[in-house]
């Protein structure tokens, strides 16, 4: 049997996976395509293989903000796994590449028939929620340069390449900052010879250096999959012990 390149599917018992295969169609996701808008009926779910889909929440008068990222570790169309047929976010292809697609009808049938699929999806959804929370807190507290480094590393891990297309405008959505903020951060990383950025193309030059420039959030999110992550977060003293020392959000 060929290697299963989406790790959510790979985690299923072989028998369950075999049952699913006939419903999975290989597709190539195109950079910039929108798979769903908020409020759209979910017609298909997608298991990225070497593609990357960004989950964005739009907000009036501002750039939409990236709230989560899905690569080969997961599935796009999570509400369907929770019994809801409508997307609450915008799902935007941000790293072109192969994925496996399944129709919503077939997915519902399989979910019902394979308890292991529901269990695996529940575990994934929980990890995604942790990623969403981590991203929210990171956006709130960490400087743009560190967030950009985190974002580039998360993207690299999912598309499995240190070189990808990315415009400043895209990045400003991803990070929730103005373009000028993105330009400054990218220039700073470039000056430190960590990345090379020209004409919408980003190349990571120094992986270790970029990891050092990123906030802890990168390793926290990366390690979420092995479950070891949470033990590394220091237990705080009390719920209300540190109000005055909390820094204001950066922008």
């Amino acid at each position, binding site marked *: 049997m060929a290697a299963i390149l989406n790790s959510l599917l790979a985690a299923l018992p072989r028998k369950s996976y075999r049952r699913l295969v006939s419903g999975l169609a290989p597709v190539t996701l195109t950079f910039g395509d929108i798979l769903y808008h908020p409020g759209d009926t979910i017609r298909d779910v997608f298991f990225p293989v070497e593609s990357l889909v960004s989950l964005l929440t739009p907000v009036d008068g501002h750039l939409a903000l990236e709230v989560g990222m899905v690569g080969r570790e997961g599935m796009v169309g999570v509400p369907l796994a929770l019994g809801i047929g409508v997307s*609450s976010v915008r799902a935007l292809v941000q790293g072109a590449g192969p994925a496996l697609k399944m129709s919503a009808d077939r997915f519902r049938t399989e979910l019902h028939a394979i308890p292991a699929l529901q269990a695996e999806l529940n575990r994934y959804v929980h990890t995604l*929620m942790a990623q969403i*929370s981590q991203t*929210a807190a990171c956006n709130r507290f960490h400087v743009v340069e560190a967030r950009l480094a985190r974002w580039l590393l998360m993207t690299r891990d999912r598309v499995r390449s240190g070189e990808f297309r990315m415009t400043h405008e895209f990045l400003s959505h991803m990070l929730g900052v103005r373009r000028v903020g993105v330009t400054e951060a990218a220039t700073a990383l470039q000056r430190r010879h960590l990345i090379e950025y020209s004409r919408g193309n980003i190349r990571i030059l120094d992986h270790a250096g970029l990891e050092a420039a990123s906030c802890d959030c990168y390793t926290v999110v990366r390690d979420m999959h092995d*479950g070891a992550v949470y033990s590394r977060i220091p237990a*705080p003293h009390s719920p209300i012990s540190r109000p005055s020392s*909390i*820094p204001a959000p950066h922008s």
Partner: protein
Amino acid sequence: MPKAVPATTLPSPKENHLLAALSDEAYRRLLPSLEGVALPLGMVLYESGGTQGYVYFPTDSIVSLLYVLADGASAEIAVTGSEGLVGIALFMGGETTPSRAVVQSAGHAYRLRASVCKAQFDANPELQHLLLRFTQALITQMTQTAVCNRHHSIDQQLCRWLLLSLDRLKGDHLSMTQELIANMLGVRREGVTEAASRLQAAGLIEYRRGDIHVTDRKRLEARVCECYAVVKREYDRLLPAPRAAHIAAVG
């Protein structure tokens, strides 16, 4: 640990909308395992990185979920009251929880031991569907909070926070210190003081010694960002109506 309280002083378990929405049969099966507890202000139900012994179904309390970063900074990612439950990691299959759960408004809840919750979740499709729907509603609240934290003013965030809290309480008073609010919103205490003063000067709230009285809810709603309405609409769409409305609708 929360203290068990005599049944006579407790609200009915059906004050919790999820429990109230269960069929008689499913409800009767859970009832012997539900333990009523008092939740005082500031109590930590679980720490980030910890394991949970119980899930909690609030009746007249509100619990805040805070995400804690490795450097100790924390921000609220969601609030849950009688419309939901606290501790989804238990049935989603996460070994530990990524957030810290703190009682934000004192009251009561019914709790269910971890082993019972898992067994019931697996054995009872009705309960499973209900809890997964709640999970999707919670994801929406988390993503909207992330966007709100990034893009909206402290005044707007405070309005959102007050309205989400009020919706989960009876009456128009909140017991809350500015220190706690600052912690929830992840901003400096002075920022909260200034925002609260502006709302007070505009005649929307009265704030006195840890008591917030919302005097003009309509104008509070006019001042809040869209995030409040987005979350409320999703909750109304995805979750069972409160008990009174439920009975009225059925009868």
